[in-house]
């Protein structure tokens, strides 16, 4: 039921964006041979804006969800801090990090969780079901890039509160550390955090692409949760083998450990550039996986 409503709203959004673009940019559509040039970036932004505006209008109807979401975040942060308290009651450092440094990392983790819950899970997280029941046909028939549309079609605005609360937590922890980041460190943090979001996105794309091979698996997003669980703590706290895994093979070290390190000055600001490089590579690889996966799609709807 909810899904059909969503589909309907998305369709409307797309159509509105399309019409507007034709009217505003092309003027008279009739006779124009360029009626399908919707791939130009300006119109992509228009479509995105239209989709998100409709989402926003929809979400604003459910304001109680905002309260529930914030309460949930507070509960989660409280649990995470208590977890740390248990670890730190038996140790003075975790993988060489002291308490407030790990809290900075926790803030970063929470901010990224906000991005995941607001955009990725409600968007690309639904892919497995759509591959299974053929719903993807509707997406592929649209004159837009399928990966971009699948990925960014939804914005659960309330969950963005996690981003705010996470960054606030990181800021407070920095204050308790008595560390005032330099301009270079802040810039490196911003770059590393943006890269982290890209790496998380690439992981989602790569994992959800598995849906094209394992069609009967509906809970593929669980795979991401399992992997991401490891990002709650600095990678240096894990045994050697896991550390290798998290830095090089499933690059979740780059999602929390690196941005937090850039902010606290544990790593030199140049790490931001390395993070951007990793993010670019991950994005390119995930795009290749997506392309290869899409070729396997044969459609299932009747």
């Amino acid at each position: 039921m909810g899904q059909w409503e969503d589909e309907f709203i998305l369709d409307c959004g797309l159509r509105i964006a399309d019409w507007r673009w034709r009217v505003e940019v092309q003027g008279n559509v009739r006779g124009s041979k360029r009626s399908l040039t919707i791939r130009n970036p300006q119109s992509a932004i228009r479509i995105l804006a239209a989709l998100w505006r409709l989402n926003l209008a929809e979400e604003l109807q459910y304001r109680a969800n905002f309260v529930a979401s914030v309460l949930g975040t507070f509960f989660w942060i409280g649990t995470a801090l208590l977890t740390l308290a248990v670890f730190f009651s038996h140790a003075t450092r975790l993988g060489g990090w002291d308490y407030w440094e790990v809290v900075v990392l926790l803030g970063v983790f929470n901010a990224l969780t906000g991005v995941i819950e607001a955009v990725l899970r409600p968007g690309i997280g639904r892919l497995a079901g759509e591959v299974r029941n053929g719903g993807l046909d509707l997406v592929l028939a649209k004159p837009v890039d399928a990966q971009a549309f699948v990925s960014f079609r939804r914005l659960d605005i309330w969950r963005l509160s996690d981003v705010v609360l996470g960054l606030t937590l990181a800021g407070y922890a920095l204050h308790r550390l008595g560390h005032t980041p330099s301009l270079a460190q802040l810039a490196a943090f911003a770059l590393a955090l943006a890269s982290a979001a890209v790496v998380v996105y690439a992981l989602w794309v790569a994992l959800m692409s598995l849906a094209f091979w394992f069609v009967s698996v509906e809970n593929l997003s669980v795979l991401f949760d399992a992997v991401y669980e490891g990002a709650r703590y600095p990678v240096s706290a894990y045994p050697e083998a896991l550390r290798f895994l998290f830095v090089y093979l499933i690059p979740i070290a780059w999602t929390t450990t690196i941005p937090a390190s850039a902010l606290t000055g544990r790593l030199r600001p140049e790490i931001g550039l390395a993070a951007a490089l990793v993010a670019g590579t991950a994005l390119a690889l995930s795009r290749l996986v997506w392309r290869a996966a899409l070729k396997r799609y044969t459609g299932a709807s009747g």
Partner: protein
Amino acid sequence: MSRAPLWLRRYAALIRNAWLVDLQYRASIVLWLLWGVTEPAVALGIWWGIAGDGQVAGYARADFARYFFALMLVNQLTIAWDSWYLDGWIREGELNFRLARPLHPAHEAVAENIAYKARTAGMIVVVWLVVSLVWPAVRLPLAPGRWALTAAAVLLAAAMRFFISFTTGLLAFWTTRATAIMELHAGVSLFLSGRLAPLALLPPAVAAAAALTWFPYMLAFPVELLTGAAQGRAVVTGFVGQLVWLGVWIAAYHVTWTRGLRRYGAVGG
């Protein structure tokens, strides 16, 4: 007693049915299993680093390894998803046709639990056996008596967690946030049921408070029985605690079920 064979036949059919349904979703079940073992694996990784070459409150690296392997197994054997199912059944009206059957819906849920647990716990046991060939730290001492006691404790814990999950799911008769309550419960159980750390590693006041709740009896007690950490009096109090809390949750289930059904206005067709 003459009804025993009838129930045996009924359950054999229900379990077989649930087993065959699960068979279709093998890959999904493996993913849930993977999701279930990452939390203890991450906790083990952290404690492994903290313990170093020494001990933490009597736990050395090998003890942590055994504890968290036992935890993965016992958790898989006792986990119950029923509150999520019930929440959906009640909100979307699927409960209707289940009520129309000549069998209480709980029996079907129990059968599903048995089939699911047999499959996933079997996988963990195989992995554990393979790992213990190359990693002596996770080997358990050969003690059939203790294993028998553990089996009884696991059975009681599984029953308790089933009734907790089922009862919480029934709250969907009154609220739309029944699963949120279950997640709250999961958050508290992270500490009090020993998922994050053996209870001996929590502050003594917290561990003492935990002993007054049902949390340690649904996970930590069977785990410590299996690893051998629970000895003597602790075994007796553990079983007493399990029986008392199981009774309490059965009563809670009974009240919620009868009151909830009276309230239930069927949705859907």
